[in-house]
């Protein structure tokens, strides 16, 4: 007989609200079911009721951690619709910000992953070093998290030449710590014991369930939109696509840590080759009927925006597919066969980014069958 272990919507393991229903046989996980929508804010609908300009700020708020990549993808899509090319300098500044964002997102991941396996010293160290990159973001954009740098047709602020030496010094410090964490991830006994052969996603399953980003790359699927479909300045920047063979939690961590080093390389190159010129092209925001799709590589994988215009200053439809949404389909094969104790770290290995609502699962103690009860039903429940 199987038992049901409900995890969420409010649970110490989850950093944001979401509901997972694990079916277990003894210690072994035999099934998992998810309920999304706890943080569903109706943004796609809201985007089609606001002007193109307003939407830059709304897109930026889809996700706090990866706000620059959201606003960049949105702006790139609108620029393509309007037939406008942003200046080269703006493309480089966007790339710098997106890479700084990747570094901070991956360091944040490392901290929480360490916390999930009870390695709290590493958690504190990783988040301490994350502050270096937050400082760099603040230096060039004025905001630690939300930079509000992007606008349709370019960026709103320039990178000043006096900032470059400070940026380079910060990158040196970051490189030093990223190298240390990469070595640690490959040698520390605690990490190896908790992360190897855990939550394995095979290459076949990664392809079958359309996994994206570091999750796919850790299963030896060489996908990276920056290389496959270069956008912005990425065609001119050189970097390697990091892959690992194993597909377990360890490989997912290793891919992210090695990517930090690649991102540092990209930022250095972009700062060195930063073209001169304006940072913004004026755009007429009454866009004739047209449609287009753009994709970028967010820290968690492929991010897609589809926009259809209708001749006004408001889009007809905006569709956003975030990378975590693309990765949920692979979850079952990562959990099946694992144990209950592995749930937190395996969950975190996909670097989930979600948000939440009202619902309760009742497990019948006789049959072990679970049933979801709505809030209304619960309110009417007789005492």
């Amino acid at each position, binding site marked *: 007989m199987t038992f049901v272990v409900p995890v969420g919507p409010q649970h110490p393991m989850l950093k944001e609200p979401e509901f997972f229903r694990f079916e277990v046989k003894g210690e072994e996980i035999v099934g998992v079911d998810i309920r999304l929508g706890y943080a569903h804010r109706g943004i*796609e*609908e809201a985007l089609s009721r606001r002007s193109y300009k307003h939407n830059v700020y709304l897109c930026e708020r889809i996700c706090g951690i990866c706000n620059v990549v959201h606003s960049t993808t949105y702006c790139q899509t609108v620029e393509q619709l309007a037939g406008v090319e942003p200046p080269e300098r703006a493309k480089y500044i966007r790339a710098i910000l997106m890479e700084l964002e990747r570094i901070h997102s991956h360091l944040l991941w490392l901290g929480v992953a360490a916390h999930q396996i009870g390695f709290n010293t590493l958690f504190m160290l990783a988040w301490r070093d994350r502050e270096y990159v937050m400082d760099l973001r603040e230096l060039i954009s004025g905001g630690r998290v939300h930079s509000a740098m992007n606008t349709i047709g370019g960026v709103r602020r320039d990178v000043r030449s006096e900032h470059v030496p400070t940026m380079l010094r910060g990158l040196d410090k970051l490189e030093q710590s990223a190298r240390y964490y990469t070595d640690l991830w490959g040698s520390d006994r605690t990490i190896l014991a908790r992360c190897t052969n855990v939550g394995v996603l095979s290459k076949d399953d990664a392809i079958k*369930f*359309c996994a994206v980003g570091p999750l796919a790359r850790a299963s030896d699927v060489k996908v990276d939109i920056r290389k496959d479909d270069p956008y912005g300045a990425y065609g001119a920047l050189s970097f390697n696509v990091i892959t690992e063979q194993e597909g377990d939690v360890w490989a997912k961590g290793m891919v992210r840590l090695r990517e930090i080093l690649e991102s540092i390389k990209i930022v250095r190159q972009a700062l060195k080759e930063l073209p001169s010129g304006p940072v913004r092209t004026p755009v007429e925001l009454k866009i004739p009927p047209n*449609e287009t799709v753009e994709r970028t590589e967010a820290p968690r994988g492929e991010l897609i925006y589809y926009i259809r215009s209708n001749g006004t200053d408001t889009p007809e439809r905006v569709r956003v597919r975030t990378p975590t949404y*693309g990765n949920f*389909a692979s979850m079952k094969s990562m959990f099946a066969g694992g144990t209950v104790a592995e749930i937190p770290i395996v969950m975190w290995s996909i670097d989930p980014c979600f948000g939440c609502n009202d*619902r309760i699962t009742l497990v019948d103690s006789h049959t072990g069958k679970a049933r979801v009860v709505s*809030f209304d039903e619960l309110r009417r429940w007789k005492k």
Partner: protein
Amino acid sequence: MDSKEVSELIKEYAGDVRIVNNRCLFATSDKQRFRALLRALRVAGVTHISTITGIDVGNVVEVIYHFDCWPTMLNLKIPLPKDDLKIPTITDVFPGAVLYERDLMEMLGVKVEGHPDPRRLFLPDDWPEGVYPLRKEFRGAPK
């Protein structure tokens, strides 16, 4: 495959091909030729579906399948009249589409026939039947 090769591959099954650039194209097909097109894509080695978009355009709901044909993005449109909002599932050919189809069903009321798990995904369980948030007539959540 680049855009030209993809358009060559699908020309039997789809019309109205618009090549945006080397790595992006739009095409329109219909329910009759849809399954054959999916199989042709699969045979050509396409495994990744990026997402499914649904758009309400008056009397028709346009469903757009975004396929990644390494590195070309094929955006395949299937227009469905509102009095016959049904489309067969693609999860048997592209299992990665399982959540996107659930999203399409609850947000636009398109019935995906043969879906292995046609429950709601984002909307609450007590959301009323027949109210679809991404339809044009939708005006706020029901009280």
